[in-house]
């Protein structure tokens, strides 16, 4: 049913931009549940790459493998020139400061206020040139997501959309080179979802970050994607720009674009 060879490529010409992240022939299983099978993907500098896939297809597993939260069974993941699986604890921590990760569940620290949530990554990575600036960095990050007034609230006091935005602010507070977004707009109303999508675009332009965005919200995909990859049954089934995939005449691809 699936083509054995390379993914359906709709791209007319590949850009020569620098590769910041590559996933090569990665497989990952949980017992008998083969989630990723020989999955490959490349992210170029300054690009927003959307990974589309059905619920349970292994999108979250994919980016958890990329950040090293889950070990891969086979294959190789390279982030900013370093192979994730081969790094020691300290090197991995160092690499992670350059990679932002937005959790599907937000994962805000519920025993801390919004301010402390944002200060946490700052305090952890003490840098001399930032001394005394933490407070203004927190304000800046909150301003970016338009939630300055929530600074002293606890996460439990925030709405779902606000929590998502605070989580985004926490991800962006030390501007990362690469951001991995796990369903940034799921569960939000269409207006907030559009705001978040626009925010993702702004961040890309402001900090020239490269991002992998996991989503099945087609509006978000349309707004944010430079390129789209389709994850079907553990493989990269097709890739190309939004328009290209939209025009592809393949039954599986069509299902996503109705």
């Amino acid at each position, binding site marked *: 049913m699936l083509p054995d060879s390379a993914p359906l490529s709709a791209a007319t010409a590949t850009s020569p931009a620098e590769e910041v992240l590559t996933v090569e022939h990665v497989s990952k299983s949980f017992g008998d549940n083969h989630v990723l099978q020989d999955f490959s993907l490349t992210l170029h500098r300054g690009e927003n790459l959307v990974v589309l896939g059905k619920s349970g297809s292994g999108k979250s597993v994919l980016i*958890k493998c990329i*950040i090293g*939260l889950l070990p891969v069974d086979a294959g190789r993941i390279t982030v900013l020139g370093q192979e994730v699986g081969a790094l020691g*604890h300290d090197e991995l*921590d*160092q690499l*992670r*400061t350059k*990679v932002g*990760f937005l*959790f599907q*569940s937000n*994962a*805000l*620290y*519920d*025993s801390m206020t919004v301010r402390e949530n944002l200060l*946490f*990554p700052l305090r*952890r*990575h003490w840098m001399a040139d930032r001394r005394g600036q933490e407070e203004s960095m927190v304000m800046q990050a909150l301003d970016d997501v338009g939630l300055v007034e929530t600074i002293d609230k606890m996460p439990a006091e925030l709405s779902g959309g606000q929590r998502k935005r605070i989580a985004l602010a926490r991800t962006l507070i030390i501007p990362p080179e690469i951001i991995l977004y796990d369903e940034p707009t799921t569960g939000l109303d269409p207006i907030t979802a559009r705001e978040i999508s626009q925010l993702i675009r702004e961040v890309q332009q402001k900090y020239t970050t490269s991002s992998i965005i996991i989503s099945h919200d087609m509006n978000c995909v349309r707004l944010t994607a430079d390129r789209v990859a389709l994850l079907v049954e553990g493989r990269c089934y097709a890739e190309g720009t939004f328009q290209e995939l939209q025009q592809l005449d393949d039954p599986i691809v069509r299902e996503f674009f109705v």
Partner: protein
Amino acid sequence: MNSTILAETGAITNFAWRFFRHGFRPRYEVQELLYQCYVVGYQSLPLVGITGFIMGIVLTLQSRPTMAQFGAESWIPTMVGLTIVREMGPIITALIFAGKIGSSIGAELGSMRVTEQIDAMEVAGTNPFKYLVVTRVLATTLMLPILTLLADAIALYAAYIGINLKGVTTLALFTNNIISTLTFGDVVPAVIKTFFFGFAVGIIGCYKGYNANKGTEGVGRAANSAVVVSSLVIFLLDLLAVQITSALGLN
């Protein structure tokens, strides 16, 4: 059943081993450790105080009739003092501590695990094991002995009150009586074992929470089994302690 107990014991031992490997290498989470000491110690104060007080009074009142039968009422302070310092103080305080702190550590880390907060710390370039587990285990290990000494003192004072309910003694006489009977062999092993009790409560609570299963059910189970397992381990350690002290001739 037997194999799950074995597997669990192995996993907890492994977890404890990881504590010793990670705990004594930088970076040290001093601020978080102090905060945890405050939380762990301060939160249990009222409960430990009340149970200590009741323990002292009840022991005195219960032993009075028997002692009176033998005409040994003047021995009550000595007997109660020994019972409290050697056994009742450490074990009751440890069990209360396991119920209060063990369950709250299990639930807290469990819900952090389930809501991916532990993963979030890891992604933020922090070692969550050091930040969450090492600090909590050190805090319980250091705080339980202090709480126990406090409970002992309160229980002894309550015993003094208990004696005065039906008879008379002065505080000076009572104190003198106890201090002159308590020996090195009574106090030191009793204090040492509370460090182990505290360590057990911390490491088991953290282990259960850190490895909690997904879902709210997992959090409840983590909190619950943290209490059950650490209470059991406290009794086992106590049994071990009494064997060791008698082998050393301290009984």
